[in-house]
């Protein structure tokens, strides 16, 4: 149980008026957003229009929405809470969270701590509700229900909370459209939302769905700011002597790796992205510059991997020689996630490890974008089906062997960066083009591109590419294989494409 939450229901209404028993409502955009109990008894409700409210209860006090006034008056409450507890954090006027474990430790008993909090928070005419839970969002909901949620039972507690109650809490900032859609689908409680897969929620609703899922699963990892200084995440080492040689760099890397791995273990997080920053000092001029490189990994890094990467990175920078000597080494675990299902390290086989580490070392030397892996996509032409992505990014390896209409083996092997334009002519010298009926307008006899001229020996039928058939402005293409002979009698074969009323060489069989 880490967080205690104090809720002062209808605080803006209490801040607006001195008499708590006089009916009062706060109006924003001609709509009631907050009202006190006396107004509720008269029949007014949140969301009601101002004119409707006036027609029901003519003598109710309607005040304009003023967050500044609410905060100013709430400050007194917060100050009195500060006197009894450290780490008091205001979420909004009327909602406060307090670091609970530290407080219990200080007062040595939960009952005493709670009593002190309630006494400090009590204001005449204002109710105070308290709730305790592990996470901030769960604690807020528990305060609204006046429950103490034992440690580890957040999910069970949240399963029973209806979505309307969660929507009533404005600090959650839940999108009403999303909630309406969920209710239309028949999902009424946070337990129903938790039963869905988070990916499905995110796919359908985006970040708003992610927010609801986080609340439903109790995945809010925000901590209440304690009075103690927060732990530094980055590991920084200032070597006694500036590092000039690779073996010194290796030693430093091992040290940093061990420290960082210990920290990650203690936090029970795994790191998937490391940022290595190094300060170089020019020994002659004394000026310093920072160089940094971020490492991207699929899997969680362990101590050996951290040390390896630091060593290779320092090796790469030192061997270029032009920057100077290393005076500070800092490693920041940029992307830390909770270890899934308790697994912290990836097993990895020996051969795969060796190949992987070789690729990673080249990345250290040349840059993360220098080592690529082919990624498979659907498509007709072999040039469309292959994309190269940096090693470490997800490689999509779907099975596209049966893609309808694809060109079959043997495949061309040479692709130029810019497909050159070629001219195809028949025996009479007229240009051979592709007609609307997807046939050639004549018999090709010569192929010419640049300064070279080839005699055509054979050509295939045309393969029209019917892509984006619903879009009339999409380019129409047709492909053809062509074999031709040059002046020396050598055979060449190309994959040609008819596009923008012009022939291009898409790929060469070379």
């Amino acid at each position, binding site marked *: 149980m880490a967080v205690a939450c104090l809720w002062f229901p209808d605080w803006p209404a209490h801040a607006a008026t001195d008499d708590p028993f006089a009916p009062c409502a706060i109006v924003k955009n001609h709509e009631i957003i907050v009202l006190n109990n006396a107004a509720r008894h008269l029949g007014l409700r949140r969301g009601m229009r101002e004119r409707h409210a006036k027609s029901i209860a003519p003598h109710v006090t309607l005040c304009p929405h003023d967050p500044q006034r609410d905060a100013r008056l709430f400050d007194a409450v917060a100050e009195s809470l500060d006197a009894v507890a450290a780490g008091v954090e205001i979420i909004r006027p009327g909602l406060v969270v307090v670091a609970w474990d530290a407080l219990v430790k200080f007062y040595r008993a939960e009952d005493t701590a709670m009593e002190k909090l309630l006494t400090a928070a009590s204001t005449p005419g204002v109710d105070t509700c308290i709730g305790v839970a592990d996470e901030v969002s769960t604690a807020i909901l528990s305060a609204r229900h006046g429950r103490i949620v034992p440690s580890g039972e957040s999910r069970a507690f949240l399963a029973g909370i209806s979505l309307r109650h969660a929507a009533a809490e404005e600090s959650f900032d839940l999108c009403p459209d999303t909630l309406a859609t969920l209710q239309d689908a028949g999902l009424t409680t946070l337990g129903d939302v938790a039963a869905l897969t988070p990916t499905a929620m995110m796919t359908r609703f985006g970040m708003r769905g992610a927010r609801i899922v986080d609340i439903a699963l109790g995945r809010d990892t925000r901590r209440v700011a304690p009075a103690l200084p927060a732990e530094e995440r980055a590991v920084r080492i200032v070597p006694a002597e500036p590092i000039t040689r690779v073996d010194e760099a290796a030693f430093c890397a091992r040290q940093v790796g061990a420290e960082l791995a210990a920290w990650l273990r203690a936090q029970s997080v795994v790191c998937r992205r490391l940022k290595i920053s190094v300060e170089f000092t020019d020994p002659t001029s004394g000026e310093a510059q920072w160089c940094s490189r971020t490492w991207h990994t699929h899997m969680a890094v362990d101590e050996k991997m951290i040390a390896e990467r630091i060593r290779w990175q320092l090796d790469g920078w030192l061997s270029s020689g032009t920057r100077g000597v290393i005076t500070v080494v800092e490693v920041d675990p940029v992307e830390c996630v909770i270890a899934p299902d308790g697994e912290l390290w990836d097993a990895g086989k020996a051969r795969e490890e*060796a190949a992987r580490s070789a690729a990673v070392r080249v990345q250290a030397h040349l840059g993360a974008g220098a080592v690529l892996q*082919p990624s498979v996509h659907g498509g007709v032409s072999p040039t469309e089906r292959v994309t190269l992505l940096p090693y470490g990014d997800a490689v999509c390896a779907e099975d*596209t*062997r049966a893609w309808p209409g694809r060109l079959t*083996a043997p495949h061309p*092997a040479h692709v130029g960066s810019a497909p050159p334009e070629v001219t195809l002519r028949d025996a009479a010298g007229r240009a051979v083009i592709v007609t609307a009926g997807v046939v050639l307008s004549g*018999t090709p006899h010569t192929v010419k591109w640049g300064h070279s001229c080839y005699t055509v020996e*054979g050509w295939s039928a045309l393969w029209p590419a019917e892509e984006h058939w619903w879009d009339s402005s999409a380019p129409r293409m047709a492909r053809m294989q062509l*074999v031709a002979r040059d002046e020396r009698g050598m055979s060449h*074969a190309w994959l040609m494409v008819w596009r923008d009323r012009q022939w291009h060489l898409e790929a060469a069989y070379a």
Partner: protein
Amino acid sequence: MIWEAVQGVAFKLSNMLTIDKRATVTQLRAQMAAVGGGYSAEPAVETSVVQPDYSNTLPISGELGEILPGGGFPRMAVSEIDPCGMLIADTLARASAAGHYVAVVGWPELLLADVLDHGDVHRVFVIPDGGADPLHTIGVLAEGMDLIIFRSARDWQISPTRVRPLLAKVRAGCAAVVLSGAHIPSPAVRVSATPRAFSGLGPGHGRIRGIDIAITVRSKQQPPRTHTLTLGEDTHHTLQLQHAN
């Protein structure tokens, strides 16, 4: 009398020499070995022709592997091949399908469509630009990869001073390095490949079904071998059948 005695001794000596020749020779050899100076008591063994060690080759399936010595490219050594992209893409696909890790350095125009169809994309690494010192990059990769193909855009005669550190790293690693467009003084295997004919296309019908490539393999272990290899759908179809079995 004395002459008889001398004759007798001579006869005895000659008898000794003929009968105990082997024993005497052995004894003399032992005495020489005891004196030292690198002389061994064993008689010199007649050495036959040294058989090449084929256990350290990266096996390549298909027709290319059949004519390469040992069934593939030698590991921990540098070979040469002509820059015939289709043959090399096919070789990469076969090697990755067999479970080996392959890397291609300095060949941005190479289209890896064969790897999509018949190989394993997760085992292929492409480094389009080898950096200022591509030989250093090859040396680094040699520690972990099984097959490295390096393409030099210009015709590069690598000087012996630069070859030596590369060879040292390659011997310390486990990869078979194959250069294309770059030449070293003595490659382990030299493969020349020229596309000769494209079959399957007629005037306005058909499609390219087979590509004939004339290959010559030169190595120290065997005389030069020539073969015409055909790349096409049929060869891979057989491969898939083998995998299915």
